[in-house]
């Protein structure tokens, strides 16, 4: 496999090209936004919590392929879980879906969406 293919798995490419959970969320109960100081990437998460369960999660932002794909996966994994479970989602959960060898220098691209999601859930 080429080095580029190791870094950008098929899942990352697919999720970056056609994210399933990107956009605004009408009726959101929580919204949060943060930036990655290393690269200036910006991620914004909107969540709608019904009766302690994440009914929907959407993200927007200016971000790289890894960050976009990670945000998309994070939104998917959060949906249907209790807010407590969703807030405890770890990088390993996202990486397992992405199936990519994300290097330490790019790990913040994976963890930024998770931390913004947690912030949105706390609002």
């Amino acid at each position, binding site marked *: 496999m080429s080095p580029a293919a190791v870094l950008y798995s098929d899942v990352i490419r697919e999720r970056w090209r056609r994210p399933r959970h990107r956009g605004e969320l009408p009726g959101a109960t929580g919204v949060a936004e943060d930036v990655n100081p290393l690269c*200036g*990437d910006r991620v914004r998460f909107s969540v709608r919590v019904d009766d302690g369960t994440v009914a929907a999660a959407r993200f927007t932002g200016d971000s790289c392929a890894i960050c976009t794909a990670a945000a998309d996966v994070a939104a998917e994994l959060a949906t249907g879980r209790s807010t407590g479970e969703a807030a405890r989602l770890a990088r390993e959960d996202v990486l397992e879906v992405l199936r990519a060898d994300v290097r330490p220098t790019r790990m913040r691209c994976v963890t930024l969406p998770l931390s913004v999601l947690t912030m949105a859930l706390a609002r």
Partner: protein
Amino acid sequence: MRLDELTRGDFPILERIVNGRPLVYLDSAASSQKPRTVIEAMTRYYERSHANVHRSIHTLGEEATELYELARDRVQRFIGAPAREEVVFTRGTTDGLGLIAETIGRTLAAGDEIVVTELEHHSNLIPWQLVARDRGVTIKAVPVRPDGALDLEALDRMLTPRTRVVAFAHVSNVLGTITPVTEIVRRARQVGALTVVDGAQAAPHLKLDMSALECDFYVFSAHKMLGPTGIGVLYGRLAVLDRLEPGRGGSEMIKEVWIDHAQWNDLPWRFEPGTPPIAEAVGLTAAIEYLEKLGMDRVAEHEGMLAQRAVNGLRALPAVRVFGPPPGVPRGAVVALTVDRLHPHDVAALLDAEGIAVRAGHHCAMPLMRRLGVVGTSRASFSVYSAPEEVDALVDAVAGLHAKL
């Protein structure tokens, strides 16, 4: 013989294989690689002459002091400073800009004004913001025109009798714009403002002459000009430097000390508290000697040729936007670009997969990114050892990026 052909063998790191390909290092503006003479000079110093400087009454102390002060003489000659007392060693550009901002900052009063520009690196912006916050001072920024040049008419409108400092980069670390230092200095002086020039990207690339530039302060780092990390230079015009109180205190910078007061040391040591970066000064001497042997005019010509080649090659590609001065206009050894639909970090990662090292992101110039309307860019930059073939490899790789993601 081309400069890269002449120098390449002197840089051991360029023999590295990265991701299965020979390293194409196009990130010299972030930090240049080091020739063997620099690495060996520092090793030799540690193996034979290391001791603390200035007050060590023994052979090694004398040798270390001699080597440290020799570096000052070499820097003085390299930048055309009229006096050695004008050369203050710092830990780097950020440290030097912080030092001079703190030092000048103490003389400012509420209502005073500092003029910066939109193309500043955060290192020439944040120290002034800290001063402005503490002293009730206002900051104004000279806009950047679409061609990457500074809007000097706007500068004229900003300069007032309350302007105390004009701080600006000699060469933009993103756009490569070379600013008209002497012109800006003259305008600033007409209103009695001090000038502080961030020379981090200029010192490795251009022949410097402080007596011709006429600025009050000029700051740069060794590690971008083939020298080691951890040392930089603050040049200060003697008449101005001598009337400033030191901004930072400690050993070395005093003559006599009492419990509640002290008498300052002479220049330049007054501004060098604590044990200085001695081995790094030795490395800087070796770097300067290396550059002087090549000749800075030749260095500028070589790097300028590479930058123009990159600008022309990249501009010809569809879906690629190249920033900074138009083709043919002299620029620093940097070329920033964006590729449609691709994030700058993805561009850098995909290029790295082919062994090409470029920088990506906001380049510590967020206000400029905002002005350009981008989250970031990918930036290629060049040094004496960079080859035209490497520029071509970059252009070819950028042309093939969309197929890879």
